[in-house]
């Protein structure tokens, strides 16, 4: 199966290292950060491990930082500080130091980064399952103990308006470092809860998708297997029909000779026979005939199934066809002591049909009737006049009804008797012989004439087969389509 399956996606989400943006609903998270920044009046920035900004809320420092930024040296130092905070190592190196907090507070790797202006930033790594997924930056804030602007600012920015700068500075939150640190740890806890929930949602939904794709792969592989099997079955079916046609033909040829030579023997062409010999030779002929009929049926059905049968329509006197068919089954009927009743309309019925095939339809129905009717019963054949037929959509047509007082067909099997090789009793000890092809041939030929055949029957009371045929079947109607294998209507391509 795996060889046929489409390639799967290279890697499951379970193998991938997840980024912070996979785990957080960025909008919800942005709102949380904003709420925090506004409540505590301190700027909040969040970066993922690649330095992408996931949240950036500034509070109060815009004027002050803007003013410092307007001095060339101020701009340079400001840029360096921002870079340090955003990209520098989250550890007590490169100008950063451990925050001043009471002992015992779990710092989770937090560091303080002082700004040359005297302001401060706190930076906290976002740790998840041993990975650093990014960092949170709080600030800048004014440390509570800060007095005048430090020389690190005033020396670098000659001409700075101290009063103006102090005025801007007043808008920035002044707080003890440990207070900001505690707020930040609280923020980290919330962030962790969000990441945990986000991870659960993200992984489960992704794995669900992967599992669905996986099931789909399985189904596709199975489909391909079934398709291949189906193609093979169709091919076998075609081979079977072709084989039957060939074998039937090969069987008929020697059989014709057997019957022919027996006929010559029985007619005394090579010398007289005594009565016992005549009787034996007749039996050979009889059985030969039965065998020939059976082989013919097999040939017919295999040709129908191979789609090779062509009908040729001619003007036909249906009454004559019925009479002729009747004459061919009369001997068997007489042998069984059956009463055969015929009802023909007063006027001859003329229609377009394939004479031979039509005759075979009637013969098959009649020989079934004779075969399945016990001694002393009756068989009736009725032909109606031409008249509009409901089954043919009101077109002019005729009916041939073959009825008997035989064993009947159980209701649940009446649909199946028209299938090839179907026998109501298919046990090896069954009472009635035959290959189960007669009715299948009837159905194919009747449908080849655009007609309808159906059966009504009652077990123990008899059967009634009714064939409705049009007086003028649609013109070409030549090739009988082989029975559809799936039973569904085929829709032709539309575009």
């Amino acid at each position, binding site marked *: 199966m795996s060889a046929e399956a489409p390639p799967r996606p290279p890697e499951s989400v379970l193998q991938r290292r997840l980024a912070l943006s996979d785990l957080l609903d960025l909008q919800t998270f942005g709102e949380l950060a904003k709420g925090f920044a506004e409540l505590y009046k301190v700027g909040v920035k969040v970066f993922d491990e690649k330095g992408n900004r996931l949240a950036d809320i500034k509070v109060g420092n815009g004027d002050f930082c803007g003013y410092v930024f307007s001095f060339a040296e101020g701009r340079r130092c400001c840029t360096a500080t921002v870079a340090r905070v955003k990209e520098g190592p989250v550890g007590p190196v490169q100008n950063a130091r451990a925050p001043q907090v009471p002992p015992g507070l779990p710092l989770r790797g937090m560091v303080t980064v002082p700004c040359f202006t005297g302001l401060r930033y706190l930076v906290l790594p976002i740790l998840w399952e041993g990975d650093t997924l990014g960092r949170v930056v709080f600030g800048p804030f004014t440390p509570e103990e800060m007095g005048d602007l430090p020389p690190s600012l005033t020396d670098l920015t000659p001409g700075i308006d101290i009063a103006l700068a102090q005025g801007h500075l007043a808008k920035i939150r002044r707080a003890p470092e440990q207070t900001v640190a505690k707020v930040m740890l609280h923020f980290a806890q919330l962030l962790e809860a969000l990441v945990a929930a986000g991870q659960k949602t993200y*992984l489960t939904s992704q794995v*669900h998708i992967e599992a669905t794709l996986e099931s789909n792969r399985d189904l596709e592989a199975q489909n391909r297997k079934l398709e291949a099997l189906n193609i093979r079955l169709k091919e076998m079916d075609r081979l079977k029909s072709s084989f039957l046609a060939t074998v039937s033909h090969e069987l008929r040829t020697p059989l014709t000779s057997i019957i022919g030579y027996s006929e010559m023997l029985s007619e005394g062409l090579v010398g007289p026979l005594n009565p016992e010999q005549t009787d034996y030779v007749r039996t050979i002929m009889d059985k030969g005939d039965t065998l020939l009929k059976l082989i013919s049926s097999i040939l017919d059905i295999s040709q129908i199934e191979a789609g090779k049968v062509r009908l040729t329509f001619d003007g036909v006197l249906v009454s004559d066809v019925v009479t002729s068919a009747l004459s061919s089954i009369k001997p068997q009927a007489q042998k069984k002591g059956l009463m055969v009743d015929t009802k023909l309309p007063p006027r001859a019925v003329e229609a377009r049909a394939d004479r031979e095939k039509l005759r075979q339809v009637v013969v098959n129905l009649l020989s079934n009737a004779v075969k399945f009717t016990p001694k002393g019963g009756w068989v009736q054949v009725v032909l109606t006049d031409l008249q509009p037929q409901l089954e043919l959509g009101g077109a002019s047509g005729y009916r041939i009804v073959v009825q008997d007082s035989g064993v009947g067909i159980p209701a649940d099997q009446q649909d199946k008797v028209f299938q090839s090789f179907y026998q109501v009793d298919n046990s090896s000890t069954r009472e009635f012989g035959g290959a189960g092809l007669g009715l299948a041939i009837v159905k194919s030929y009747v449908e080849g004439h655009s007609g309808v055949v159906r059966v009504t029957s009652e077990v123990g009371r008899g059967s009634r087969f009714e064939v409705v045929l049009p007086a003028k079947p649609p013109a070409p109607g030549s090739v009988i389509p082989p029975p559809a294998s799936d039973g569904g209507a085929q829709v032709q391509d539309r575009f």
Partner: protein
Amino acid sequence: MQLNHAQRELTVKVVYYGPGLSGKTTNLQLIHARTQTEGRGKLLTVETHDDRTLFFDLLPVFFQTKGGYTVKVKLFTVPGQVIHNATRRVVLQNADAVAFIADSRRSANQDNNAYWANLHENMRENGLDAAQVPIVIQFNKRDLPDTKTEEELQETRTRGREPVIGAVAIRGEGVLETLFAVIQLAYRKMDEQAGLARNLGLSEAGFLAQVFDRIDTSGTQVAGWLEQLQKEEP
């Protein structure tokens, strides 16, 4: 195994496999409870209302080596219900080792066999060579009636090369022993492939000691096994 030298990171994947209700999640819950917070992540579990694993559980256990490598051992469980085969296959992808959690009861024999076959089939589908992926068998629920005898377990041992460990996961018995055995085999396999001892300076005893460093092994055989291992190591 995912070994990323640039990020100095080694990720090991261990999958707990087995029939439904055999105790896979219980194993992970116990490991979670016995591990200090700094050494593990959260236990991710998605359960249905009847407390059965819907998709999978995930518990990461991690440590830093002296050489500065982050080692993450990711423990997964698969859903046991028959219908979730596709999820089982997804979770099983790239497994470094498998802990097969079987139910010791005799009545569960058929289920155990079915999931054993399912494990091998899914390995094949995933392109994993069953002969190359170490498996440890845990016979769980040793406390229940109808459980197999020690002789029967012994017979299972002789029938294959997989180590077989008895357990009562719900009481914590055999859980860390199973974890030890499966990680030990995973280590040997990875060492064979990537030379962990040579390239990362991670010996078998060192590796296992660090995995269990933040896990409470009291009352289990693991502490003794670790000691033994350290003594044997040159």
